[in-house]
């Protein structure tokens, strides 16, 4: 049975229809964390976040406190919030920006205060039309409430927050591509080093880039203390996390769960959570952390939902998205669609990704839709090996950013786990499920 006794840190207002309004937010403790933060020294606010051991919730899982402290040597110019959530089947930031925008805004102001940054940009993917409206309205309300603007809540701290709409490009979730888009350019990831925007970010100045969910945790952390947050979860995975459950499951949705205390079996099968698969279906495989992650089979259902727990088994918790694939679904078709996505979203700068993604997609298309050849199966693995040599996890890097090395995950997983299905497609001359 799932362990559901942890406090809801970022989704506590999920049952209110008006959870996005200032009045509801204030009634439920809103902006108390910010008021408290303003009575503390900025470095003490940062220390509290460090104590919480909050891992970034965007996908890479880098400790948020460490990201901030790398910069303490030189003043930071900008804070940029990454709300370009586009990893397929990930929809937790969508929930946060539409349903609890004030929580995000409060978290952002707390972070700006801790970092002593007076200019913040919240980058939201353009397809979140309603989310853009909700966040802008929350900002307007916050200015009117005195929580934002000059001398907030009577303190000596002034800060401005601008919402910046994206325009439809997965790659802009990569932080350096996001900064390019924010500078008004094509979303090409920047060459590393420098690895961190902390060193060279927006307009070449020191910049912190944090995810929407990471920011949304801050009001609770400051109100309740970093130690209370760190007491939840286990090991390096502290606090709670939003998991987006999708695919062949009865109750798909966003669930906030204490880290590590629950397993994939809990979230997929517990009646209070995923509720299991449709009648008569069995689990074929599941993707534990977004389509960039290698797949797991049913034998790994009892793996705890923790960063190192999943990482140790050759995959990742990534963006917090779990995709359930049942035995009636075609894994070849699923893999083809994922490779089509990467092929479409490759920015085209690096040869292994640009050429490899298209080549892989064409071979997958042949296998799924007829015309596939037996040697295509090993060709696919060879192409994957060219993008990420050795097909290790974490993958070897041959490209500027991690989009390229993410392509082999699903292909390599599907062929390793279900080679017979690929062979059947070749023999049948297309998809036997059609």
């Amino acid at each position, binding site marked *: 049975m799932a362990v559901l006794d942890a406090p809801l840190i970022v989704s506590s207002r999920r049952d209110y229809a008006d959870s996005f309004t200032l009045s509801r937010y204030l009634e439920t403790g809103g902006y108390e964390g910010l008021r408290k933060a303003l009575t503390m*020294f*900025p*470095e003490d606010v940062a220390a509290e976040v460090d104590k919480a051991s909050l891992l970034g919730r965007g996908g890479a899982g880098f400790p948020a406190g460490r990201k901030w402290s790398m910069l303490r040597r030189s*003043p930071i110019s900008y804070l940029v919030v990454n709300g370009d*959530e586009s*990893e*397929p*089947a*990930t*929809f937790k*930031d*969508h929930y946060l920006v539409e349903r609890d925008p004030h929580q995000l805004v409060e978290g952002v102001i707390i972070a700006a205060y801790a970092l*002593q940054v*007076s*200019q913040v940009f919240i980058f939201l*993917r*353009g*397809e*979140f039309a309603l989310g*853009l*409206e909700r966040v*802008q*309205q929350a900002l*307007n309300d*916050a*200015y*009117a409430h005195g929580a*934002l*603007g*000059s001398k907030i809540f009577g303190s*000596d701290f*002034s800060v401005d927050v*601008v*919402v*910046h*709409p*994206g*325009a439809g*490009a*997965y790659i802009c979730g990569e932080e350096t591509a996001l900064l390019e*888009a924010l*500078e*008004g*350019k*094509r979303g090409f990831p920047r060459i590393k080093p420098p690895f961190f925007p902390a060193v060279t970010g927006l*307009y070449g100045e020191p910049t912190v880039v944090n995810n929407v969910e990471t920011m949304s945790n801050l009001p609770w952390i400051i109100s309740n203390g970093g130690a209370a947050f760190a007491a939840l979860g286990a090991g390096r995975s502290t606090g709670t996390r939003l998991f987006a459950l*999708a*695919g*062949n499951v009865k109750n*798909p*949705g966003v669930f906030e769960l204490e880290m590590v205390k629950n397993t994939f079996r809990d979230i997929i099968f517990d009646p209070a959570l995923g509720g299991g698969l449709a009648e008569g279906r069995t689990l074929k495989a599941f*993707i534990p952390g977004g*389509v960039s992650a290698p797949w797991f089979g049913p034998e790994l259902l009892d793996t705890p939902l923790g960063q190192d727990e999943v990482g140790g088994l050759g995959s990742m918790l990534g963006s917090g*998205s779990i*995709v359930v694939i049942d035995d009636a*679904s075609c894994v070849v078709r699923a893999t083809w*669609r*994922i490779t089509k*996505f990467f092929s*479409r979203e490759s920015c085209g700068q690096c040869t292994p990704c640009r050429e490899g993604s298209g080549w892989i997609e064409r071979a997958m298309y042949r296998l799924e839709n007829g015309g596939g050849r037996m040697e295509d199966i090993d060709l696919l693995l060879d192409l994957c090996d060219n993008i990420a040599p050795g097909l290790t996890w974490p993958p070897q890097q041959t490209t500027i950013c991690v989009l390229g090395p993410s392509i082999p995950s699903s292909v390599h997983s599907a062929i390793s786990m279900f080679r017979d299905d690929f062979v059947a497609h070749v023999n049948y001359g297309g998809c036997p499920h059609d």
Partner: protein
Amino acid sequence: MSHFRADIRQRAEELVALYPRRRSAMLPLLHLAQEQDGYLSDEGIAEVAALTDTTPADVRGTASFYDMFHLEPVGKYVVGVCTNIACLLAGGEELLEHASQTLHCAVGATSSDGLFTLEETECLADCNLAPCVQVNHRYVRTTTPATFDAMVEDLREGRLDHDVPSHGTLIRVKRQGGLRVSKDDVATERAQALAERTARAAVAAAAAAAVSEESK
């Protein structure tokens, strides 16, 4: 002579003023241009170029990178059906095929009456209600062929005009508020805070040194 309507032009100038560099307003301005014209017209692109101190070629080159910007005219309603992994597993491909029949247009094309453009989209991050459909980037939450057809009928009759405004994502909620003090004042405020912090760090370091001296 501005190509933008007076209200759009004013909004555009306000947007440019929000950024340290004019070019940063590129994507919001392109959304605005699309809001007025439905797509990026030559005139709209020229105006964005002038507003951002760039050239029309540069604007076009930037816009073409992004899926949401249309360099050709599109229908009044751009219908996007997701077929990415979660939607695929829920029948997204079948819904897209059905949409193509209902709207009488191929994927990527515009219906002959100019009302609908149909697109196959990547994940729209609404996977608990798969397959996901957006019209002009508003979620319409219709997941079956029957509800899709009813939704199209509602669009034709104008019953969804409130939920599905015109192209563009910035039209309905305008920014209000702002710093209301000069950037110089803010810089002074930050410098003051940094000086205080440095002083605190020095005191703390001296105290720590004294403790370690004692313990020796």
